[in-house]
């Protein structure tokens, strides 16, 4: 006679409920969260007869992506079924390893503004540039700057001596030079150019390259002051300097879950609804005239823990679903946020391949 637990019908299948909650949820108590580590080991529940293996088939069955909001600059989407380490890897890659273009070298011809040369160069470097970095190559020390790895901008502003007020220099004053550097024209008779552009850069990029936001204040000039400079932008990644980071920021949070352990009725219910700053709870009127508190919008919970402060600690449980991540990406580069995420996945794939293939 076989006693395999899968064949005996009246035995409970799967894990007992409290263990299932431990396995799939992070419980956020008043002082700190508990059960924060994910249990990856396939034999973790072997003694209960439950198999915890996560095979590729199981992953493809459980995995789900849902885009909630997509605008030109911002994207919010949900990923269900991945582990926290992958979500964090995407966040780290989006912030530090997706390449963009940013101004690196500034050749100053004339600067009589109140902003020092290096501060001006620093500010110019932080301006987001409207160029698709996938069309450009990296510029290393031995390379010659040409139209495939450099973008040249020129800025020439002056405030006239008779002007009654100060002139604000905004980022639209940066004009793109698709034919390359014009610095050699400053010094009469000099033949050598600073960049060697063979073709017009418009042929590579097809659209004019400007700055992403035209209203960024770079400097302010008083009467009689002027700035004349040429700036070269190159491709880089956020790890070298934050100016090359393509996102304003990228973050994720886990899906919140709010559970009532005890029913909350009447006056307490009304108080509870007032306590929550993001209106997670709502009042439901029962048939006998009583009011009951229900969870209406658990997704907007910010874990401020106002609802479990004080005497309601035992009645409400705040939980996070361990494998459901709500990603938000705010793009600050030429690429839209969905293209940034696709680039991030490609970069992670390349990293995995490099780590594997270079093992001799």
């Amino acid at each position: 006679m076989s006693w395999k637990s899968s064949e005996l019908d009246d035995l409970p299948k799967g894990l007992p409920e409290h263990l299932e909650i431990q396995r799939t949820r992070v419980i956020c108590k008043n002082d700190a969260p508990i059960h924060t580590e994910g249990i990856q080991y396939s034999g973790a529940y072997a003694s209960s007869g439950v198999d915890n293996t996560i095979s590729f088939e199981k992953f493809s069955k459980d995995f789900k992506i849902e885009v909630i909001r997509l605008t030109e600059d911002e994207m919010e989407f949900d990923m269900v079924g991945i582990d926290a380490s992958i979500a964090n890897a995407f966040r780290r890659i989006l912030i530090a390893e997706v390449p963009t273009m940013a101004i690196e070298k500034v050749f100053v011809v004339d600067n009589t503004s109140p902003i020092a040369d290096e501060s001006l160069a620093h500010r110019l470097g932080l301006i987001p540039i409207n160029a698709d970095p996938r069309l450009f190559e990296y510029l290393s020390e031995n390379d010659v700057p040409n139209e495939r790895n450099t973008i040249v901008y020129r800025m020439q502003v002056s405030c006239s001596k008779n002007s009654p007020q100060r002139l604000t220099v905004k980022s639209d004053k940066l004009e793109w030079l698709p034919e390359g550097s014009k610095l050699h024209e400053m010094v009469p008779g000099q033949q050598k150019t600073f960049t060697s552009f063979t073709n017009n850069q418009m042929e590579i990029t097809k659209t004019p390259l400007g700055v992403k936001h035209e209203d960024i204040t770079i400097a302010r000039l008083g009467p009689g002051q002027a700035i004349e400079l040429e700036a070269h932008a190159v491709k880089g990644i956020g790890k070298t300097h934050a100016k090359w980071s393509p996102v304003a920021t990228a973050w994720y949070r886990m899906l919140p879950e709010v559970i009532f352990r005890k029913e909350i009725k009447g006056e307490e219910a009304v108080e509870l609804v007032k306590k929550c700053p993001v209106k997670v709870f709502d009042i439901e009127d029962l048939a006998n005239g009583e009011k009951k508190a229900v969870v209406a919008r658990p997704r907007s919970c910010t874990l401020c823990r106002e609802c479990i402060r004080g005497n309601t600690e035992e009645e409400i449980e705040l939980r996070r679903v361990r494998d459901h991540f709500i990603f938000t990406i705010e793009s600050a580069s030429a690429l839209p946020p969905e293209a940034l995420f696709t680039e991030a996945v490609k970069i992670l794939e390349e990293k995995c391949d490099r780590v594997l293939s270079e093992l001799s």
Partner: protein
Amino acid sequence: MNAPDRYERFVVPEGTKKVSYERDTKIANAASFTVEREDHTIGNIVRMQLHRDPNVLFAGYKLPHPLQYKILVRIHTTGQSTPTQAYNLAINDLDNELQHLKKGFEDELMRFQERHNQGY
């Protein structure tokens, strides 16, 4: 003044191998992989995937020093497999997962654009 250049975090210098392997002399089926110019981004993912392998007894990673840009991944396996096999299997599994993820994301994007366009 003593900080290394920022590009050192990801550029592997000439002469050093990206991944090197050292067998542990005292314990059977145990090895240590040193991956140059990588950090928690890859380390945590590889460790997580190794934990999912039933043949792996021990898997961990560390950054020996935050200013030395390399990670050490230590793997002990049962007799059924070797650390190199476990490492290769883990990264191949990760590749499959990431490809599936990318495809899922692109499909969902198309669906979202269509829903959006039909709404107008």
